[in-house]
């Protein structure tokens, strides 16, 4: 598993971190089972396993199609136990808006009560951010609506380096976009690829036909064709990019969408490929498929009004996970002493691409097995007493937070927050999505700067600060997304190679595979904030592989 994860991450992960992750992964399962997560069982009472994207053996423990959700509920229940015990104090509906740094050390946060609007400092001896990923910079992603980068970005502005921001995972099995008002893309469990076969028509003229009318010989099972040994179970980045390639070739399926390409040319494409279960249904029977994937099929039908037992599903890639994040060392500590970052919010374990089921694993490993040890170590040397609320560092942080809120509310322009966010999302998806080019990225940086200026001139944030104000919340998050988006493009621009979730069209093999440049880019790009409008400063952390040999990833 150690090897799989390093390889899946396209040799851009820190080897030691992955090793640790792999070694505690068994403990995670033990812990979760003990906490009451109902993993699937065999009749003998042992835990059941199945295979998952990017691995050839059945080694993933699962809980129907909702493993992640069940692990979350398990962790939530364990958390509530601590709340009842009095060891954890919960602040529901609070949002961190600023980090308090005193003498270069993280000493607390400033949070806004999202119900009353009250801005309060919370001082502490150490701060842990477990604030998730920033996929919503693309507006449309499979992330929940509330996901944002604000906590991580505020820490970045206060001096924490931001690692590998351009590594974005595009998940292959999502339900295609239906229209302009879409707010959110829906991910279907990757487990579907275990039994479903992905194909597009061989001939572009077949694309408008009912898929059931297309004979077997006119179907192109492109993943099975190109990657005979892994077939439909290739890692996510590859599955996604190939789906995009097929659609770019004009062999996509589903409704026709008008798109404007980088040259300003408008053309029509279909964005979707088929995920076909007819073989699985004839092999396992409808009941067999239902037992395995029933809930996913129901979900698909509910969203699209098509019955996947009858018609093949249509899927298309969507932003799902961000491998980048706040840079942390082996102890998960950032460049600001006393600030620790865990889970998706940090950059540490996945390199340029993440394998199936390992986001949960990383989050749980960080929280259960890493931080409890590393924080203790930090605290042993740092006990400076309570930081009073009237300390200049605290007051400054609180005032900065309030000033930004007031500034947002005072603009009273004409455009809504979401319209800006959608536009930013379009730019990011077009130029910093599945395929990136030097020209496109440069253009994107300019466009984002323009958009940001317009935002500060013309946004309309309704309501008042001292209220439950969702527009204000979104506006504040968008401010950070603008800056992050720009850094993502800059990072993507500087990394002149293709690896994992980062694919530069200039750097590919003749077969269209990602081409790495290990001699030049085998490092983590950790960016330092250089002030408003300043040029971010690049720091390089070389990646040294001692246990695993660096080689071209192959899933053929």
């Amino acid at each position, binding site marked *: 598993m150690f090897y799989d994860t390093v390889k899946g991450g396209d040799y851009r992960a820190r080897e030691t971190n992955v090793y640790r992750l792999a070694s505690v992964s068994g403990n995670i399962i033990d812990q979760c089972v003990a*906490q009451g997560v109902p993993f699937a069982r065999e009749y003998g009472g042992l835990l059941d396993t199945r295979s998952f994207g990017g691995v050839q053996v059945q080694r993933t423990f699962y809980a129907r199609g909702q493993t992640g959700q069940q692990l979350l509920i398990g962790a939530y229940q364990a958390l509530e136990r601590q709340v009842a015990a009095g060891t954890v104090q919960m602040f529901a509906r609070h949002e961190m808006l600023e980090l308090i740094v005193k003498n270069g050390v993280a000493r607390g946060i400033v949070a806004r009560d999202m119900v009353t609007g009250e801005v309060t400092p919370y001082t502490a001896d150490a701060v842990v951010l477990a604030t998730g990923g920033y996929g919503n910079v693309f507006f449309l992603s499979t992330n929940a609506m509330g996901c944002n980068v604000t906590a991580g970005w505020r820490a970045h502005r206060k001096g924490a380096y931001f690692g590998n921001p351009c590594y974005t995972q595009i998940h292959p099995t999502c339900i295609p976009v239906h229209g302009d008002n879409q707010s959110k893309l829906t991910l279907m469990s990757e487990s579907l690829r275990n039994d479903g076969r992905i194909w597009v028509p061989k001939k572009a003229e077949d694309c408008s036909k009912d898929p059931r009318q297309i004979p077997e010989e006119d179907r192109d099972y492109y993943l099975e064709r190109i990657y005979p040994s892994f077939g439909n179970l290739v890692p996510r980045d590859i599955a996604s990019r190939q789906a995009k390639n097929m659609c770019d070739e004009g062999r996509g399926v589903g409704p026709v969408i008008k798109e404007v390409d980088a040259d300003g040319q408008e053309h029509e494409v279909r964005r979707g490929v088929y995920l076909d279960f007819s073989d699985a249904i004839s092999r396992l029977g409808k009941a067999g498929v239902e037992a395995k994937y029933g809930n996913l099929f129901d979900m698909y039908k509910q969203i699209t009004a098509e019955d996947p037992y009858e018609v093949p599903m249509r899927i298309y890639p969507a932003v799902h996970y961000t491998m980048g994040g706040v840079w942390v060392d082996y102890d998960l500590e950032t460049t600001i002493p006393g600030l620790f970052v865990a889970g998706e919010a940090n950059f540490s374990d996945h390199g340029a691409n993440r394998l199936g089921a390992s986001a949960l694993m990383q989050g749980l490993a960080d929280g259960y097995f890493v931080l409890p040890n590393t924080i203790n170590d930090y605290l042993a040397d740092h006990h400076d007493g309570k930081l009073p609320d009237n300390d200049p560092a605290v007051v400054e942080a609180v005032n900065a937070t309030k000033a930004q809120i007031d500034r947002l509310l005072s603009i009273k322009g004409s455009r809504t927050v979401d319209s800006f966010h959608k536009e930013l999302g379009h730019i990011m998806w077009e130029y910093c999505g599945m395929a990136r080019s030097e020209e496109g990225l440069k253009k994107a940086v300019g466009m984002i700067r323009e958009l940001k200026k317009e935002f500060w001139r013309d946004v309309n944030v309704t309501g008042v600060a001292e*209220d439950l104000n969702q527009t204000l919340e979104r506006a504040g998050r968008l401010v950070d997304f603008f800056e992050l988006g720009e850094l993502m493009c800059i990072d993507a621009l500087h990394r002149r190679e293709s690896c994992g979730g980062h694919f530069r069209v200039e750097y590919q093999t003749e077969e269209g595979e990602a081409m790495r440049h290990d001699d030049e880019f085998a490092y983590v790009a950790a960016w330092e904030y250089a002030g408003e409008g300043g040029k971010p400063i690049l720091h390089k952390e070389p990646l040294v592989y001692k246990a695993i040999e660096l080689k071209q990833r192959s899933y053929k």
Partner: protein
Amino acid sequence: MKLTLKIWRQARGAAQGKLVDYKIDNVSEDMSFLEMLDQLNEELTAAGEEPVAFDSDCREGICGTCGVVINGTAHGRGNSPVPTTTCQLHMRSFHDGDTITIEPWKAKAFPVLKDLVVDRTALDRVIQAGGFISVNTGAAPDAHSLLAPKLQSDRAFDNATCIGCGACVAACPNASAMLFTSAKVTHLLNLPQGQPERFLRVKNMVGQHDAEGFGNCTNIGECSAVCPKGIQLESISTLNRDLVWSLFRKDGFTVA
């Protein structure tokens, strides 16, 4: 399609709210219900009005954050052909020209924070009272050391799918959270690792449920009818049985 919306507006801290009429046009039937509300909010913002506050997060029916009463049924179950959360209800379930009434969950234990947003921390406190297994990190034995019968762990799973959205409370004519509480209890009591605390758990959780001011269950079945995860009344029956049994057991004992 064109719709008339009657939406509950309640200022923060206000004791009462009222239904306000809104007209909305160009609603596509592929949109989800919340996307329709997004569109309304965009239009309201453009018109300089304060948008409608509502909760949502994952928008794929798994987090339990969203939830409003639509046309008198929680999550709009009455309009949907299948069990659903509000985010997974799609506009194709409605017709052009329809009038849709949208209200928040209403129960004493769920105070309205603003408009359609309610405070559901009461459910958290029910979990805090015992909806967990007391195991400290790092102390867990090997996962295979406890064998779990497959069908029984499947039953645990069925109950573990509860996302705590609160629709059961909203739909229950008595505003009871028994379906939620029983799902959590039934989840843990069907697992071998849930046994040691089994009877103490049910007592504490039921006690907290009552203390939060929820109503009592009268086996009507509205809760189960709107449950997006299909939790059945059997769970409540299981809880009842366990509570009775628990009275004949000393705390911390599984067998009398």
